């Protein structure tokens, strides 16, 4: 309860300072709109459905591409960790591609797929995939060999050992790789949406872009807030349960 109060108080204070700066008229209200005009924009966008629609479009692209990226990345990471040949080929390629900022895939995706959903999906997958491959590979390599030996003496076959021992033992690495992949995918999707218009659906990035075109600062700040809230929710819903489980089991939590 006290914690909740602190959080609320912090944000209220933040908004008050914002309102104060707005009323002091240091900057033009076109550049720094007050909290009320941003709130009014958000209310309007919520009521006419644009905000909800854009959020759905963006989240659909993000989640679909993200899970495809994980589904491909996990087995590839296992392969690079298991086979020397895969390590020397795909492993090195993955390492190189992961250092590439995922925004850099946008021009290539647009040339290959045009201004389509496929281009968006491609960008998200590229953002996710390499982080997951490398994290999985790293995770598997840090699993103490004694776990696999113990499993094998208990009658676990090679395949069974991989599924029930190697993968769960590398979970802490895999989850942090998934988190990094999420961050990369989210950033590059926003960049792509701001960069080009995709006719099959207007996402949050497009709203941000048109806010700039129309000089509507209340819209720009409003959408930025929405993007932030989505990021925060994703962290709490998608990753926190996993991290809590890992901390509890491995005993890595601070308190």
């Amino acid at each position: 309860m006290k914690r909740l109060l602190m959080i609320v108080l912090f944000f209220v204070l933040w908004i008050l300072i914002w309102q104060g700066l707005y009323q002091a008229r240091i900057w033009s209200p076109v550049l720094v709109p007050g909290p009320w005009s941003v709130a009014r924009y958000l209310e309007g966008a919520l009521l006419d459905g644009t905000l909800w629609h854009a959020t759905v479009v963006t989240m659909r692209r993000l989640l679909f591409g993200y899970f495809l990226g994980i589904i491909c990345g996990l087995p590839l990471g296992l392969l690079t960790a298991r086979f020397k040949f895969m390590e020397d080929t795909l492993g090195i390629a993955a390492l190189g591609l992961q250092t590439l900022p995922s925004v850099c895939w946008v021009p290539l995706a647009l040339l290959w797929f045009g201004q389509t959903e496929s281009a968006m999906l491609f960008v998200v997958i590229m953002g996710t995939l390499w982080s997951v491959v490398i994290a999985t590979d790293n995770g598997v390599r840090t699993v103490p060999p004694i776990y696999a030996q113990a499993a094998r003496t208990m009658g676990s076959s090679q395949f069974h050992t991989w599924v029930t021992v190697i993968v769960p033992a590398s979970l802490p690495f895999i989850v942090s790789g998934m988190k990094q992949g999420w961050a990369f995918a989210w950033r590059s999707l926003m960049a792509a949406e701001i960069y080009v218009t995709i006719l099959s659906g207007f996402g949050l990035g497009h709203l941000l872009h048109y806010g700039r075109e129309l000089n509507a600062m209340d819209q720009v700040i409003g959408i930025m807030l929405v993007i932030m809230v989505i990021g925060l929710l994703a962290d709490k819903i998608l990753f926190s349960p996993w991290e809590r489980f890992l901390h509890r089991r491995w005993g890595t939590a601070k308190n």
Partner: protein
Amino acid sequence: MMAIRDELQNVSPEKLVVEGVSKWFRTRRAAVQALDNVSLNVREGEFVCLVGPSGCGKSTLLNIIAGLESPDSGQVLADGKRIAGPGRERMMMFQESALFPWLDVMGNVMFGLKLKPNLNNGERREVAQYYLHLVGLESFMHANIHELSGGMKQRVALARALAPNPRVLLMDEPFGALDALTREQLYGDIQRIWQERKKTIVFVTHNVREAACLGDRVVLFSPHPGRIQEKFGVNLPRPRDINSVDLAKYSTEITRSLKRHLHPETAEVAE
């Protein structure tokens, strides 16, 4: 019918037979011989301790019996059959407990049981509970591994190894990392469980007193290359106390033999 088949197969009365086993470890620079022509028989229900300084190949031999490694020459038979790989019949316990941190205590004990066919999940849980009770940790069923002390971890590892009901238990310095008091408790536990559950145990340690306390027989290894130097029978009633005077006689004798081999000059002077 059974009798005829047994006669024809000429089944060995020994539980484990190690015949002329040699093992080399090759690195890029050199080859090291870990075991040189080692032979050893272990009877059903026997408690055999392998002792020796580090590098004497005793752990390697245990891994070979477990089927985790294969010998370069010679062979190991379990119930007269050549060992080709790991099997539930020979369960291994390691120095670090090797418990799985992503499972709770119950999950760890269930791991081996889940791989055993002909049991439903209810029966598996009952078996797991029985063994957790046997090692005195029934109330820690849902505890996480990191919440256990070193001694408790080894107890869970013991329960996990016992649960699939192997005939042979292979233990690689299982109490090496524990404090003296905990170790003494576990000496009692392991002797009690060995007698109750009628297992064959091969136990590796570098602690001579521990070996004399637990073993029906103590097999002394010498290093570089690993060979069996001497075998001792320990004829003391059970349960044995690690601090007893009778035990000290055996451990002194074994230690003397160990020293004689390691430093022949000084040992002779000391005599």
